[in-house]
């Protein structure tokens, strides 16, 4: 019956009870799962703050054409498609971080090595979302840079000297979305490292 296994005891052919007592100890000393959940919560925090700051960036200024007549000029994020895409991408990142954070915690509590199997899917999904959030950062950053410095060759005037508060909101939001993409990068690195260590251990 156990002729090919000379080292394991005969009652260990029923694997479940042995595994469930091994796995919480397997995860107890390691910092991988805790760092994974912490990074996902951090991603949620930065993404949602970036969305809120950009959504609340509206600024209205009264431009007086001639004395006694003033028209209000508005600057809001819906005026450029790059900013709309940035808010959409960061909202997706926010939702994604909640879903994967919950999945990760559930996989940790369940015995049976399912957290490591989940890291395979996390690598691919995190890399895809990294691309999306990086594109949002790049797009919003590019348009905001033109708004800040202007472009003399194409006659695009700078906007930030008139709408200072709008521009500082945008700058904060772009910095936070850069932090989100770095967090996603760290998450992918963590998953790759955990998988390679598991492979090396056998």
């Amino acid at each position: 019956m156990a002729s090919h296994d000379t080292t394991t005891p005969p009652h260990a052919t029923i694997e479940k009870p042995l595994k469930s007592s091994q796995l919480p100890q397997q995860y107890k000393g390691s910092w991988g799962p805790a760092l994974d959940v912490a990074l996902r919560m951090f991603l949620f925090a930065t993404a949602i703050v970036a969305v809120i700051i950009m959504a609340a960036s509206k600024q209205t200024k009264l431009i007086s054409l001639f004395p006694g007549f003033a028209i209000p000029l508005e600057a809001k994020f819906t005026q450029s498609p790059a900013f709309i895409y940035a808010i959409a991408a960061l909202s997706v990142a926010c939702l994604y971080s909640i879903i994967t954070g919950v999945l990760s915690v559930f996989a940790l509590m369940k015995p049976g090595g399912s957290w490591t199997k989940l890291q395979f899917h996390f690598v691919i999904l995190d890399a895809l979302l990294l691309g999306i959030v990086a594109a949002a950062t790049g797009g919003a950053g590019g348009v905001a840079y033109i708004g800040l410095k202007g472009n003399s060759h194409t006659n695009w005037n700078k906007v930030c000297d008139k709408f200072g508060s709008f521009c500082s909101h945008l700058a904060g939001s772009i910095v936070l979305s850069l932090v989100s993409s770095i967090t996603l990068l760290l998450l992918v690195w963590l998953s790759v490292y955990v998988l390679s260590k598991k492979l090396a251990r056998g």
Partner: protein
Amino acid sequence: MDMQYKEGINGEVGIRSAGKGKVKRSDLFVRFLALVLTLAAAVVLGANNQSTTVSVKIVPSLPPVNLPVTAKWLYMSAFVYLVIANAIACFYATMSLVVTLAARGGKKNVTLIVTILDIVMVALLFSAMGAAGAVGLIGLKGNSHLQWGKVCNVFDKFCHQTAAAMILSFNGSICYLLLVVLATINVYKKF
């Protein structure tokens, strides 16, 4: 018995199966494709300039004056970023191709470092794509709220060449994403 069960510890020493060779070959092929695509994108955008004349009516009574105007990729910082990002990605693809070919069947740490840098390249190329895409969209459609006029009605060849470079760069970034997926599948097969 050790060589049969504990593949991961011995690495590729005893086992060169057909399945493993196939994954490795597709990895090299995709890496070479990424090299070609990013090189093409950098070259197409780097050689992009157009000179044309715009007829402007300064005074209504006089006939219109033809002003020469030029569009170069250097004039827009987002396009400079795209060229630099594609140049970095091309250089990295060359280096990693050389390193992967040299370390075939050798250490495990090389593939780990190469995968880690692949992910960085994905982020870099996608962000450059986003920046050039946003700026190109403004050039194409204009932005009436911000008083930025469209540019592509005058410089149509410039805009078409920029769009072609962006498509090439996007395909290059998809190749890098595929490399990450292939590395994951490669590890999954060993489990």
